[in-house]
């Protein structure tokens, strides 16, 4: 299998990871596209035999950190005006379903970057602690404490229904 077809095979997971980091789907696909381009340029730096998915997660995460700091700060406010908009439609089941879905997005974006990326790698992508810590370049203890704090915040934001 070629480098490109290996990338194509993991692309669905990379898009999912991008979506869990980004504010919306358009941003997520921009991030994913940028990560692919970067990977193709930097393919000589990938060591065959190591995990391509971890390498790609790292590239994507670094791009996201580089480009997304200010966007992330702007999004950190927990969208009170949006929550207000939906109050009037509380009886509408479709709108309720929509709010249920976007609650997860908004809760994720209320997290500090370092908690969100840890949560995304472990809970969404299903990486082991060891692999996730490697992607993020932090010790395992740091990863687990971010997971504990991030989850506490999510449970609080999402309520008991989490």
């Amino acid at each position: 299998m070629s480098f490109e077809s290996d990338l194509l095979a993991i692309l669905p997971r990379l898009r999912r990871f991008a979506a869990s980091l980004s504010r919306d789907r358009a941003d997520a696909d921009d991030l994913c596209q940028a990560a692919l381009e970067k990977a193709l340029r930097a393919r000589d730096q990938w060591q065959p035999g190591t995990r391509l998915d971890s390498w790609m997660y790292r590239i994507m995460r670094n791009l996201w950190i580089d480009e997304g700091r200010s966007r992330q700060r702007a999004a950190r406010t927990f969208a009170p005006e949006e929550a207000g908009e939906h109050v009037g439609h509380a009886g509408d089941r479709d709108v309720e379903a929509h709010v249920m879905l976007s609650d997860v997005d908004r809760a994720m974006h209320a997290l500090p970057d370092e908690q969100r990326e840890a949560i995304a790698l472990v809970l969404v992508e299903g990486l082991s602690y060891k692999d996730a810590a490697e992607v993020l370049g932090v010790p395992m203890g740091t990863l687990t404490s971010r997971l504990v704090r991030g989850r506490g915040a999510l449970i609080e934001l999402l309520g008991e229904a989490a």
Partner: protein
Amino acid sequence: MTDIDEAMLIAWVDGELDEVTRRRVDRAVAEDPALAERLELHRRLRERLSGHYAPIEAEPVPVGMRALLEENAKVVRLARPAALRWRHWGTGGAIAASLLMGLGIGHLSGGPAGPVAIEKGAMVARGELASALDAQLASAQEDAPVRIGLSFRRKGGGWCRSFEGQAVSGVACRQGEGWQVQQLVPGGGQGTAYRQASSGDARIMATVDALIDGAPLDAAQEKAAKDRGWR
């Protein structure tokens, strides 16, 4: 009071506990309803998050990303799922048309060595481009001035091939004894601005997707089609 902390509960949920510790947590949870509730909360959170993002993994990948990788690979392509077969035909056609106008076809057809001529109101390949389309195999084309990309059967019958050259790249389809050019975009030798577009050109992939019937030819099929004179 128990010695099971939050980190152990989430490690239980994440499948990160060794067998001994896991049993210890299980015992503590069995004796402590509050702890059991906390564990359940973490289990549901993980389930909800992974469930929320799971549908994205099931989506077909965007055509542009796929094209970037496939064009970059420049190897025998795998057949793609029918669901992905080109959906933006209108867009592709419009882009192709606007590119043609921007390129100024008069110039292309004017020079004696130009790769394209206008015959009876249609663009046809000539010179090196025509020779490459006639005879060149994608598997054997080191240093050829024009490189062949994909060869494939067209919807409704006939053969088409994508090509990449110094001045122009594009797609041409067999028409009578010649090749009618379906699309031209700037080729690989036109400076850095175009280089990237050429090496991973989504526009050409879009045209291929619009025209193709089934999967691209593999090396053996390509040779057989060539040997039969693309009839």
